[in-house]
């Protein structure tokens, strides 16, 4: 027998035919397709019992109610809480991505101590005794006022607990980072009275005049604002946006009034002048006869419509028409605060806008501005202060604001120790190089951060804080909302790492210091403290998850004092030289302050904002010269030089460069850091006399092809 080519052919064909007529082919095709769908590296949540727990998001000042979906007790999804008085079921992209913060690569997993340039792990006992020891030395040396505190927010029990510690220690040097909330409090203090805040009833207004406020991009309580804007059409409310670029809010507005950057205050005062000259102002709503005040004399003289046109670029006729439209509306409200209203704001501008509300008789009226009392639901027992504390706490503060503090520290020091809680000044303040240099002047820095951010990297000891999903806390609404709601943030999961609630850390620290300080902090835990200080509302708070303290207009019309405005100096911004004015642009998808965007949020940013490693800057084609869309260019200001990508955009005023805020982080998180540049690096602070605010909304810049 001979095996030849035909035999092989027969063998092959026979095998093929045999397999074809068996189920092998069909079955293998099916199975291999299922195999590819189930590759083991695809993360799949476990099956199990689904539960929903209520909490409050405290990533931003919005204080939205959230519902956390869990499977077998493990949180898997964050959703907006239905029927919550602030967000009514809605949630923003930062909130829904909240779970990513739990496992963030930049999280601080254990207490750390700086040794040279490196951090080394220490135990909680070591960390507490180390900090308590240092603080003890400061107190013994008789200068307790040289302990400083920079914190993020000024409301809620945690802020008061920190303040209590500072008092008991003996230091008046507590500072809060600039926020919309703090700017509104300053405005209320300048025009009405101290310890008040302003709430804007955008929900019920039929004519919203926004002075650059990014109503749908993160101003105030973002979800509440977005919902108020969304219902505008239904309730026939108009939105007029005063802006120098076509922001999302401007795009959604009924009318855009283009102004030169930095002249919003002048426009507001121009509108006030028209109201005074042409209409009968609701005099009974003001203190005395406004026409006899220095303020009205100043308006009459310096803010004629022609002069306002020259300053702002808005036509005199348009100024008058806008003022008349505003006063003729049933429930108009003027809203201050460019972008998110936090960094780079002038009190003069806030006050001018509020003056417009006052003159139009919109204070404490539905759809207007509420001059609100603080949410006084917390009742701390009396603090215990020894002689050292009394003496130190009675001394004058080093500076009026955190920006002034930085200035002071950088020039001639003044603090021997600094606490940093809920704040990232080395990223969020203008001229970050200067802030870092100021930090270097402080001998001993203690950070209560959850993440190894720019400021934590500068610290000497880190007492890592559990994040909002791991802790209990009262969260008070603010941020320009016309109601006060206290929500209860509850632990949704046990701390993922060896972190503690900063309230517990502070109690441990106070107890380690002993004597009078320990006496003032005699609680077993922060939970016990919260239960005690919330007193009457604790039961409702822990049952319902929130308590509405007030949602009605305050009674009566508050007194308005225009003295600040009649003497408020105009500040000479922007500084530096160049053909362009660089301004930061707030985007909903990018967090700007001490909160850091999640990897998910960064992923959703479009390539007209972040392209590869470059921040994209908006410029008008008319002023672009030889620069083309997508070009890499060199942007230079008095503070620094960076490379950016050009995004031609006819929606921005000629001569203005818009740069996204919230990029350019420089810490260890590959998903968020190393992308774009931090616009705050490029802007120098301009301290406004009379308020201490950093009013640098922008800076002069040059732009050339790389």
């Amino acid at each position: 027998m001979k095996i030849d080519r035909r035999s092989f052919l027969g063998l092959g064909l026979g095998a093929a035919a045999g397999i074809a007529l068996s189920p092998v082919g069909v079955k293998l095709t099916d199975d291999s397709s299922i195999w590819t769908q189930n590759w083991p590296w695809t993360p799949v949540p476990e099956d199990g019992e689904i539960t929903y727990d209520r909490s409050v998001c405290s990533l931003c000042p919005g204080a939205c109610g959230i519902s956390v979906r869990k499977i077998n007790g493990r949180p898997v999804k964050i959703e907006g809480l239905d029927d919550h008085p602030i967000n009514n079921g809605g949630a923003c992209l930062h909130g829904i991505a909240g779970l990513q913060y739990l496992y963030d690569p930049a999280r601080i997993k254990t207490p750390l101590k700086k040794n040279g340039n490196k951090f080394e792990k220490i135990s909680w006992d070591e960390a507490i005794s180390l900090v308590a020891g240092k603080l003890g030395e400061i107190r013994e040396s008789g200068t307790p006022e040289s302990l400083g505190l920079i914190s993020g927010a000024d409301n809620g029990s945690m802020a008061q607990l920190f303040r209590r510690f500072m008092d008991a220690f003996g230091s008046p040097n507590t500072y809060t980072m600039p926020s919309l909330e703090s700017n509104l409090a300053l405005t209320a203090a300048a025009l009405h009275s101290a310890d008040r805040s302003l709430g804007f009833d955008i929900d019920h207004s039929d004519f919203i005049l926004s002075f650059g406020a990014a109503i749908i991009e993160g101003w105030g309580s973002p979800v509440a604002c977005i919902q108020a804007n969304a219902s505008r059409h239904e309730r026939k409310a108009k939105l007029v946006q005063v802006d120098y670029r076509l922001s999302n809010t401007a795009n959604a507005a009924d009318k855009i009034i283009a102004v030169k950057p930095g002249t919003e205050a002048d426009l507001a005062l121009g509108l006030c002048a028209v109201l005074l000259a042409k209409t009968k102002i609701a005099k009974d709503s003001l203190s005395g006869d406004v026409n006899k005040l220095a303020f009205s004399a100043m308006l009459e003289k310096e803010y004629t419509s022609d002069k306002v046109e020259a300053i702002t670029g808005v036509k005199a006729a348009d100024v008058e028409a806008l003022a008349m439209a505003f006063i003729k509306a049933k429930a108009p409200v003027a809203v201050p605060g460019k972008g998110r209203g936090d960094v780079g704001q002038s009190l003069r501008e806030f006050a001018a806008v509020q003056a417009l509300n006052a003159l139009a008789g919109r204070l404490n009226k539905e759809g207007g501005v509420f001059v609100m009392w603080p949410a006084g639901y917390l009742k701390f027992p009396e603090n215990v202060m020894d002689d050292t504390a009394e003496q130190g706490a009675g001394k004058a503060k080093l500076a009026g604001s955190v920006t002034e503090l930085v200035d002071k520290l950088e020039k001639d020091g003044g603090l021997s120790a600094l606490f940093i809680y809920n704040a990232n000044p080395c990223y969020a303040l203008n001229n970050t190089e200067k802030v870092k240099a100021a930090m270097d002047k402080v001998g001993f820095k203690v950070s209560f951060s959850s993440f190894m951010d720019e400021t934590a990297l500068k610290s000497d000891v880190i007492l890592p804080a559990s994040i909002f999903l791991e802790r209990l806390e009262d969260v008070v609404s603010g941020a320009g909302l016309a109601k006060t709601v206290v929500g209860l943030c509850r632990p949704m999961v046990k701390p993922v790492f060896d972190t503690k609630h900063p309230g517990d850390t502070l109690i441990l620290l106070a107890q380690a210091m002993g004597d009078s300080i320990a006496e003032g902090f005699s609680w077993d835990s922060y939970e016990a403290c919260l239960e005690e200080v919330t007193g009457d509302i604790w039961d409702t708070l822990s049952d319902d998850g929130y308590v509405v303290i007030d949602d009605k207009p305050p009674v009566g019309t508050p007194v308005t004092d225009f003295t600040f405005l009649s003497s408020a100096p105009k500040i000479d911004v922007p500084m530096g030289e160049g053909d362009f004015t660089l301004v930061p642009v707030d985007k909903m998808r990018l967090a700007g302050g001490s909160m850091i965007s999640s990897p998910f949020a960064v992923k959703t940013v479009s390539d007209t904002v972040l392209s590869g490693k470059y921040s994209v800057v908006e410029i008008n084609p008319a002023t672009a010269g030889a620069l083309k869309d997508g070009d890499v260019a060199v942007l230079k200001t008095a503070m620094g030089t960076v490379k950016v990508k050009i995004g031609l955009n006819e929606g921005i005023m000629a001569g203005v460069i818009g740069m996204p805020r919230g990029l350019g982080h420089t810490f260890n998180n590959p998903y968020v850091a190393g992308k774009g540049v931090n616009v705050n690096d490029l802007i120098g602070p301009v301290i406004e006399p009379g308020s201490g605010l950093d009013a640098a909304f922008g800076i002069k810049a040059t732009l050339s092809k790389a």
Partner: protein
Amino acid sequence: MSELENKANDDPGGGAHHGINNGPEDDKGLGLGVIFFMGAFLVCFLSGWLLFPKLLYSKKEQPFNFDHSLHVEEIGDCETCHFLREDGTFSGIPGLESCMECHTDEPMGETDDEAVFAEEYVAQGKEVPWLIYAKQPDCVYFSHAAHIVAGGMDCKTCHGHIGETSSSRPYEENRITGYSRDIWGKNIWGIKKNSWDRMKMDDCADCHLEEMGHKGYCFQCHK
């Protein structure tokens, strides 16, 4: 010379060049081709039908035998153990906690399986690693509530008479996909006689077409 060598020498192949070019030799070549074809065909065909299914699936035994019929007799219907939660989700195979509502670490019966359960799992507080015959891929969303409550369907329609069995049959795991043989069905060609023979997408679609008049949309199950 050995016998072998003698034989070799006697070989008629000594005439190696004999008859190499004649016609009938060609016909024999074609015949061989056909034989090879038939042989290969038969081997592959039969292996495809008989050997392949055996190779494709590996057999695994459940941790110990479970008597469904006994449990149904003692405590009632399927829903006692495999219940719907209040939110409509299906509890699946009961956890140890549910079993311990009746069982303790003292065996209740005389069987070896009961002893294994009591000693290795209940006493040690360890969940039983049951192998699940009906587990679908993760890309499939399936609501038991929609079928049982809204559709009024019987467990048997999809799962067969499992409640009447007194022993756990071996779990046959597909070596490629990792899923149970019950999904594709015992019949390798995929032919089914009963509604519970298979649990593939087409089986869902067939039933939907019959009951709802429509096969359903992709996103109904692939969410």
